[in-house]
């Protein structure tokens, strides 16, 4: 179905159809329960034979143990019924099974109609559900009402083989094996060849990807690279107001995953950067890597009132004023900071690379 053809107002119809199906199923089941007893009486009244049914009991083997009331339904011994009673029951059951099959067929036809006239997903699914469900219900009702339930008791064979069988098998095996293990040199060489195959298979894994060194320590920013926004606009001193932020990239790699950076403007006097990063935030512009050090999601949420960067994935918070130290949540390391300076044209430039490789941690992290 075309997206624009689907009117969003159909939402109410979804609920209506859901309600209809659930209600319909519940209603059918209630009718089924209510009428089964009544129908049994009706059918037995109609089909009652004048003969006593005692002779028919021979068809039903008496259970080995007298039935006792049990807690669990399925473990109950079968209640024996006479043949004529069972036939009455079958007449009742036939009504139910036929209704279920008819519903299934009707729904199936309905599906075909909806499909060929380009109908909605709702109707397609609803009709298919009724069709499948009708067939399933019909089969179960068939088992309940039309089939004789007989409890079977069988012995379980012991699973371990007998001593005799085991001896036979091991004799056969060792008779052949003797011809192999006497040849110590050859078995040793077989092992050696298999060992080389194992080494080959493990080595072939190398083909699946480049050596880590090629992607683990990317040089993302270089000194002197200008910061640009996603649309390519260079960042100057009046691009942001205090309490604003923008995502920036190096000038020639917009969209770079590793280089994506959050550029935030805060009140300069509020910053509490460590001494060695004193000049890194001209006019309150401070830049941190946007890749979360926890699991690599872009840290896209900036909260102005609390000056926190919040990662939406696992809710780690980083304090913008304190060199992006993690203040809560599962992240353990601060976001790497990017040193900034203003070049002679008034544009913000990177003063070097990030303090650490951006992104989640790994064993070889410096």
């Amino acid at each position, binding site marked *: 179905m075309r997206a624009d053809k689907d009117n969003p107002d159909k939402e109410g119809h979804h609920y209506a159809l859901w309600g209809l199906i659930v209600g319909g199923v519940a209603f059918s089941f209630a009718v089924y329960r209510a009428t089964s007893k009544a129908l049994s009486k009706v059918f037995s009244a109609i089909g009652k034979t004048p003969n006593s049914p005692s002779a028919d009991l021979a068809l039903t083997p008496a259970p080995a143990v007298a039935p006792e009331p049990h807690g669990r339904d399925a473990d109950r011994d079968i209640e024996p019924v006479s043949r004529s009673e069972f036939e009455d029951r079958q007449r009742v059951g036939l009504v139910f099974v036929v209704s279920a099959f008819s519903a299934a067929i009707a729904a199936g036809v309905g599906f075909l109609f909806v499909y060929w006239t380009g109908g909605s997903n*709702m109707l397609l*699914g609803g009709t298919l559900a009724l069709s*499948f469900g009708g067939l399933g219900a019909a089969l179960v009702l068939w*088992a309940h009402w039309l089939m004789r339930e007989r409890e079977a008791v069988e012995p379980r064979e012991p699973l371990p083989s007998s001593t005799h069988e085991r001896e036979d098998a091991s004799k056969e095996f060792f008779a052949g094996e003797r011809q192999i293990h006497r040849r110590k040199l050859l078995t040793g060489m077989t092992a050696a060849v298999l060992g080389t195959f194992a080494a080959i298979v493990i080595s072939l894994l190398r083909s699946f990807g480049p050596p880590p060194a090629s992607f683990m320590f990317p040089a993302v920013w270089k000194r002197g690279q200008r910061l640009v926004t996603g649309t390519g606009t260079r960042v100057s001193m009046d691009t942001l107001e205090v309490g604003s932020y923008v*995502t920036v990239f190096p000038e020639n790699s917009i969209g770079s995953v590793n280089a994506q950076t959050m550029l935030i403007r805060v009140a300069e006097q509020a910053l509490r950067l460590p001494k060695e990063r004193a000049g890194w935030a001209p006019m309150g512009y401070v830049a941190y890597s946007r890749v979360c050090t926890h699991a690599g999601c872009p840290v896209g949420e900036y909260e102005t009132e609390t000056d926190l960067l919040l*990662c*939406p994935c696992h809710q780690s918070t980083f304090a913008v004023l304190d060199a992006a130290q993690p203040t809560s949540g599962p992240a353990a390391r601060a976001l790497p900071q990017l040193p900034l300076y203003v070049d002679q044209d008034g544009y913000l430039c990177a003063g070097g690379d990030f303090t650490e490789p951006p992104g989640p*941690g790994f*064993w070889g992290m410096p």
Partner: protein
Amino acid sequence: MIGFLARWFDARLHLAKTARRAFDHVFPDHWSFMFGEIALYSFVLLIITGAFMAMFFDATGAKVSYDGSFKELVGISVPAAYRSVLHLSFDVPAGLLVRQMHHWAALIFIGAIVAHLARLFFTAAYRRPREINWIIGVTLLILALFNGYFGYSLAGDLLSGSGLRIAYAIVLSIPLIGSWLASILFGGVVPTDVTIPRMYMAHIFVIPAMLAALVALHLGIIWRQKHTNYPGPGRTDETIVGSRLWPTYTAKSLGLCFLVFGFIAALGGLVQINPVWIYGPDNPTAILPGAQPDWYLGWIEGALRLFPGVNLRIAGGLVPEIFFPGVLLPLFVFALLYAYPFIEKAFISVDDKPHNVLRLPYEQPFNTAFGCAAFICLLVLFFAGSDDVIAVTLGASVVTIREILRILFFVAPAVTAVVVYAGCSMWQRRSESHRHLRSLARPEFLAVTGDPKMKDSAARTTLPG
């Protein structure tokens, strides 16, 4: 017609005796024995709907311009896989239905496996001789988890793309070999050119082949060993009581099959799932909150959120904080699952005899208490995985919710274990006193077996309560 076919095949395959034995095969029928079948039939539907969708999917992450019927995205550069999924959803008749049925079937498949596992655990069905099937079953669960994850990550949307980045970070965090593993599995920093094609191959071929083979083995072993029974009259370790395969059990099982199909079709038609057009195409510089994986990975997601940020430097390297909840926790949980029958045999019930009659939950207080505590612990993690959705819905602070869940992670399982253990012991004592009285009155109900525990269970005629 059937007669002709039967004779034709029998003349070539010697089938009559096997068929006769098969028709007579006894299946104990209790409703709780059907959970595995729900999983099996969902798997069948997954294969059927998956085959349909595979005819439309474009398994590459290369960028193309979207030109389909969803107007909000027309003209944007999207992964080709994403475009094919949108094409299937909007422009292929019944395409959206099949796609949604596939995804719902996956959720139900894994849920049914978990329900089945719970039933097995609480009735101690993993005891000898069924340890093999238990191990196969846990393996099936792990494979299903991976396959589901790869499946929804194929669409190339923003939500699953975020999940990929998290998975990459988890693999990277493994000490010493993490970056090599990440390179082998992902081909570099996700998303690479091979990410989608590789996941596709795993999702439609490698893992389903292993699943199918293991499921066939699983069923074959059940057939061979015969199913277990709940305790009851006539049910011993040497006899099996139930109904025959043909025709009753066949009808009921096929009925369940189509009812499962019906439920999944109803969900697929009426409840929207994974609307990738709302999330937008994958973009490593964008993100959205409420980025959860599918439900069956919610426990790992919750652990990732709850585990505090600890910096661990040992032997000259960094062990990142996500290593513990992302790698060690799942390894520990699955190792425990695999080993449980052997641990239980060695230390708890100290019993290596074969059992074909199940143990009821209250007859094994330690296992039941442990199982309930583990379940509650995982439940806390599931809640933690959706803590931001809870926070937004209740208008509460996610930080507070996180702190509460951190405490509950330790307190709730401990309390549960104590309560359940006490409850089981009480119930056991009560039923023993009932049994004692009854056994005095009805000696003929004592089944003749060697195991005194067995005798008592079989002799029970009325469940307490």
